[in-house]
Every structure is written in structure tokens, then in C-alpha cells.
């Protein structure tokens, strides 16, 4: 109850309307009006209910943290600690866990094509959109009380600022200073709540430039590609810790996705 009250209080705290100051606000508003996210959510619902894998069962009994099959509010409370896996998971790591444990699928098979393209999206992308939709309007309240949740947040913070690779980049190289751009893209300072809030409240999202749903695991993957680093494993502790760190930084913000992005 305390945590709920705290979340509500934070949600009511003023969030600067960064988008309104942006010269791209009008473009963002116009594209948002015709977001085709619903189609992808419907596709995700179909896959959620489809019997698959060696055990030939659907994901309908998947426990995303609110109990088996409970979708309402599940996304708003992720990432969080799961006792059955003894680790912190974000939505995608948890979906993968359910595919493996409930449906009996192998990690290799279930992660063969986690990021789709414009011609064909991926199972993970549409499932993410479908699950996230059920948290619309709810404050982001990722887990932070369990010691492993604490450790995940702290690890994420360390990784965020860790410079490495041939180009000496950390996340903060692009997301560490206010008012900066890469080409025409404005860069949010993701360790600061006023920037993390509007961002984290809108993922996953339909991305106009790639005509598909993009997820946070994809975002981490593609940032590391551009940082010239090797590839992070899908749903790894590293990517989950980064997502956890940024979601905790954004906590209290009302979830309003799946949204639309450039």
C-alpha cells in the first residue's frame, strides 16, 4: 500500500513537457494520431493464446509477476525479481522464460528471431505490445525492494556510465548531457528522471522509420551495435539491469504505450 501511495505521489509530481519544447513535437503529434499499434497488439494476443512448443500450450498461464495469466498492470511493475528464476527479469526475459518453462521450447529456438523487420515482425515484439497495452494509464513501479532488485538497479547504473569498446563509448556518451543531438535526433539524458520518465513510459513502440514494433531489448541491442561493442545476449542480466535502472529512474510516470516513435 505504501508503495502504491508513493507511486501515485510521484506520478503527480510535475513532469516537464519536454516534447512541447521540441521543434519535432508537431511531427510527433501527427504521427501519434495514426499509430497502427492496435494491429500489432491483436497479433500479439493471437500468439499469446496460440498453443506452441513441445508441450503444445499457450502462454495464457504465464506469470508476468501479478499471477498466472494476469496481464493488467504486469508491464508497469517490470522489471522485477522472480523467485522461480531467482533473477530480475524484464518483460522480454520473462516472456522467454515462459516460452521455455511453459511451452518447453529451447532458448535457441525461442530466440532465433527476436527482432523482426518491416516485412515480418517478431513474436516477441507483438507479444510485448499486447502485454504492455494492459498497463496503459498505470504508474511505472518496477521492483526495487528485493536485494537482487537493488543489485540489478546498481549494476545497471554502473553499466550505463561504463566506457568501453573501440570507440570508448558508454550510454552516457550520447545520453549524458542535456540539449545534445545526434544528427537531428534529440538525446534524452536517461539517468535523470525528467528525461527518463517520458521515454520509459512509451516503450515498446511502433517505429515509423522501421514500420514495426520495437522493444527495449532491441533498443539495448542496437545501441551496443552502434557503440561498436560485441552483441549482448537477449534478455541477459546486462540488458535487463540497464532497462531496470532507467525504469526505476522513470518510476511514477504513467505508462502510455505502446506509443509511436520516429
Amino acid at each position, binding site marked *: 500500500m505504501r508503495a502504491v501511495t508513493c507511486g501515485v505521489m510521484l506520478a503527480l509530481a510535475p513532469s516537464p513537457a519536454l516534447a512541447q519544447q521540441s521543434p519535432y513535437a508537431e511531427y510527433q503529434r501527427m504521427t501519434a494520431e495514426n499509430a497502427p499499434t492496435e494491429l500489432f497488439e491483436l497479433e500479439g494476443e493471437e500468439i499469446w493464446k496460440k498453443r506452441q512448443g513441445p508441450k503444445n500450450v499457450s502462454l495464457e498461464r504465464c506469470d508476468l509477476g501479478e499471477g498466472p495469466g494476469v496481464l493488467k498492470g504486469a508491464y508497469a511493475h517490470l522489471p522485477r525479481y522472480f523467485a522461480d528464476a531467482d533473477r530480475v527479469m524484464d518483460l522480454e526475459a520473462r516472456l522467454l522464460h515462459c516460452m521455455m518453462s511453459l511451452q518447453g521450447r529451447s532458448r535457441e529456438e525461442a530466440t532465433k528471431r527476436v527482432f523482426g523487420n518491416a516485412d515480418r515482425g517478431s513474436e516477441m515484439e507483438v507479444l510485448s505490445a499486447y502485454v504492455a497495452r494492459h498497463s496503459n494509464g498505470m504508474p511505472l513501479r518496477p521492483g526495487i525492494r528485493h536485494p537482487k532488485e537493488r543489485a540489478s538497479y546498481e549494476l545497471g547504473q554502473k553499466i550505463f556510465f561504463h566506457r568501453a569498446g573501440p570507440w*570508448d563509448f558508454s550510454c552516457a556518451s550520447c545520453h549524458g548531457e542535456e*540539449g545534445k*543531438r545526434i544528427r537531428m535526433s534529440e538525446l534524452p539524458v536517461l539517468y535523470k528522471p525528467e528525461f527518463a520518465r517520458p521515454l520509459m513510459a512509451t516503450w515498446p513502440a511502433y517505429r515509423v522509420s522501421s514500420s514495426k514494433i520495437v522493444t527495449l531489448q532491441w533498443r539495448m541491442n542496437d545501441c551496443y551495435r552502434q557503440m561498436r*561493442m560485441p*552483441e549482448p545476449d537477449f534478455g541477459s542480466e546486462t540488458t535487463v539491469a540497464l532497462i531496470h535502472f532507467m525504469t526505476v529512474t522513470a518510476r511514477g510516470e504513467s505508462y502510455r504505450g505502446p506509443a509511436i516513435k520516429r
Partner: protein
Amino acid sequence: MSRALKVASAFGLLAACATAPTPLTEQPKATPRDLEEVTATLKRDFHARGQATMSRVELDNVQRICNLHADNPPREVAQPLEEAQLKAIPFPSGSLMGDWKRGERIAQSGRGSMWSDKPGVQEGGSCYNCHQISPKVAAFGTIGPSLAGFGKLRGSSPEMQRYAYGRIYNSKAYNLCSQMPRLGHAGTLNEQQIKDLVALLLDPASPVNQ
């Protein structure tokens, strides 16, 4: 609600909020132990793909010092490292001015050194991602300073060519924790490409200096 209860619930609320971590206001310094922990985590959680091998996870001394000092090491720590980086730059002899037209294409291209790029092919320097360069190009980033008029302001003397070449080859030789990649040192750009970029910056005919 009684006053006592109000006070109690206010305290309860504060206590609940206090359990959530306080957001940072600036970049924190890492400890040697943090660096060990993060490097071990990355080694476990990443895999080689294409040209992006796992050796890229290992820190060199420059990265280590910058991480430990939140990109702001004391002068006496930074200086010897900068000198060592400068010493390691293989400056070619003769003119360092290449072809500014080729330089413009190199500056535009954001490809090279990624797992999605063809190994062994040197493509671009991603320069416009962070810098304004030719005033004709509107889509430029702002992480680095504007380079418009660079040669007009500084001329194209051999010393200036050497500075521009060195700065592109290894920015850390001049500012240890610069955010700019060490494009020559990292193998992203070769000697000719860096010369072409020097020309883009310094050649009086380059659009940068119009």
C-alpha cells in the same frame, strides 16, 4: 483523520519513498572493483558477432582512468597518458591534406567497425553525427563543437594539418577523456581517409571554409 495519524502516515510515505534510490544528478566515479564487476558481467553476457570480437570488452588504460574519474582525471594523471597517446600516433611524412570531396563522404557515413559492417572495410567517421561541418548539411549533431569555418579561422599550415590529423587519429592524445572516438587508433579510418578529412577541415576550397 487525527493529527497523530496524519503525521504517522506522512512518515510512512516518506519511509516508502526513501526505499527507492535517489536519482543521480551527475556522472558518478567508478571504483576499481566496479570496473572489474562490470567487465566480468559484460564478458559473461556478450558474444562476438562479425568483426565485433569479445576483446572489445577489455578496458585499456585510458578508458580505465576516465571511468575511475568520471571523465575528469586530475591533470597529473591525465598528462602522461595523453603524452603516451600522442607518441603512438604514426604521423605520415609530407602533406597531410587529402581530397576534401572524399572527406565529405567519409564525414557523412556513419558506418564502420560495427558487427553489421563488412570486416576490413573502412567506411566512415560518423563525423556529422556529432559535429556541424559543411554549413550546407543541416542534419548535424551537437555533441562535439561546430567545425564550420575550421580552416578559415586557423589556416592550413603544416602544424595545423598535424594537429587536425592527430586529433582525428586519436582525440585522447589532446583531451584524455574526450567523447570523440580514436578513429585511427581504433582502426575505423585509415591514413588516406584521415588525410581526406584533414582536407575537408583545412582546404580553402572545402565547403567548410566558404
